[in-house]
């Protein structure tokens, strides 16, 4: 159910959907081969349900979309970046828990 709230982004959509958006966005940069990324997947889905209408919760597969991760010098995943008004508000790397992500999202929600 909650999974339907997570938008899967492409490089082509990034600017329009994240940088120019009215709502803040959390982007989870991930890849299918990454164990920790897989582990936080369910947390991301839960957050998407809880922050629906307040923060856009999105994921970007770095294998399929190399441009955006390159632009933000991402060489470790999972990296989660919180954007608001086209700017980075906060950023975290690693299999962080729901509590920490909630604290991060509450800065903009």
């Amino acid at each position, binding site marked *: 159910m909650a999974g339907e709230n997570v938008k899967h982004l492409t490089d082509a959509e990034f600017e329009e959907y994240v940088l120019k958006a009215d709502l803040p966005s959390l982007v989870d940069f991930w*890849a299918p*081969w*990454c*164990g*920790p*990324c*897989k*582990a*936080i997947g369910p*947390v991301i889905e839960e957050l998407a349900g809880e922050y629906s209408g307040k923060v856009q919760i999105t994921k970007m597969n770095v*294998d399929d979309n190399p441009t955006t991760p390159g632009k933000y*010098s*991402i*060489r*470790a*995943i*999972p*990296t989660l970046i919180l954007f608001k008004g086209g700017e980075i508000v906060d950023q975290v*790397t*690693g*299999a*962080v*828990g*729901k*509590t*920490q992500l909630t604290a991060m999202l509450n800065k903009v929600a």
Partner: protein
Amino acid sequence: MANIDYQLIILGGGPAGLTAGLYAARDRLNVLLVEKGVVGGQVLVTDWIDNYPGFPDGVSGSDLIEKMAAQTSRFGLQTKNGNVVKVELSATKKKLTLESGEELTSQALIICTGARPNKLGIPGEEKFTGKGVSYCATCDGPFFRNQEIVVVGGGDTAIQEADFLTKFASKVTVIHRRDSLRATKVLQEKAFANERIEFIWNSQVVAIEGEKEVERIKVRNIADEEKEIAVSGIFILIGTIPNNEVLPLEQLGSDKHGFIKTDQEMRTRVPGVMAAGDIRSKHVRQVINGAGEGAVAAIAAEHYLSGLD
């Protein structure tokens, strides 16, 4: 004991904590597992595990954890996500305070907070973490396709991951401060046979440099000769340090590195407090003995609790 929330709290959800949770839940204890991130611990960053019995073809770290977690769920283990900032221990009551201010109390406690990768503590290491400096080959390896990288270390993790990294990197140079490896022989043989792996012996990395990302490192050998190597990535795999920051070490008893001392039943010197897994003072840090210690600690907790009745 009306003012105590749980019979048992397990602090940390790696293989030791999950196994302790499995045993305790099957024993129908009123038990809670507290984890600050997601369950799994260091196993999550392990690409492939070939030495956990029952998986003849090996298993990925994340799959193994998923199976362990599913097994605890089957018996109704309750888990809570929260960052513990304070641990207070007395013979009759164990109290954990979370970052949110919430307090959790129990009669018995099993500490499974584990360990995390050690750092070199050299210039550039912190600045470039996530930008070429990595402690996790399986998470970050694919960012270094067709690039030249180095691995620092000579133990099992360093040598296994150096081999793994040759799937992506054009060349992996292992830099080790001694003239031989500590890693298991099978891993050594594989690494020595791998044409993409080179070794620099008797040497240490002394600096990591670059503009926005890692571009080169400085290496010094035991003859005090220094040279620069152009690399885009450096994987630092030099053992672990204990996650003990919130633990009352003096009360619990620890070795000089800060790992918790226990007896062979995983009991610390505080009544009703056990420790299991990588946080324990010991020589061998494998998934198999982490899990085994979790089982022993849960049984010790059951014995302790039944003595309270």
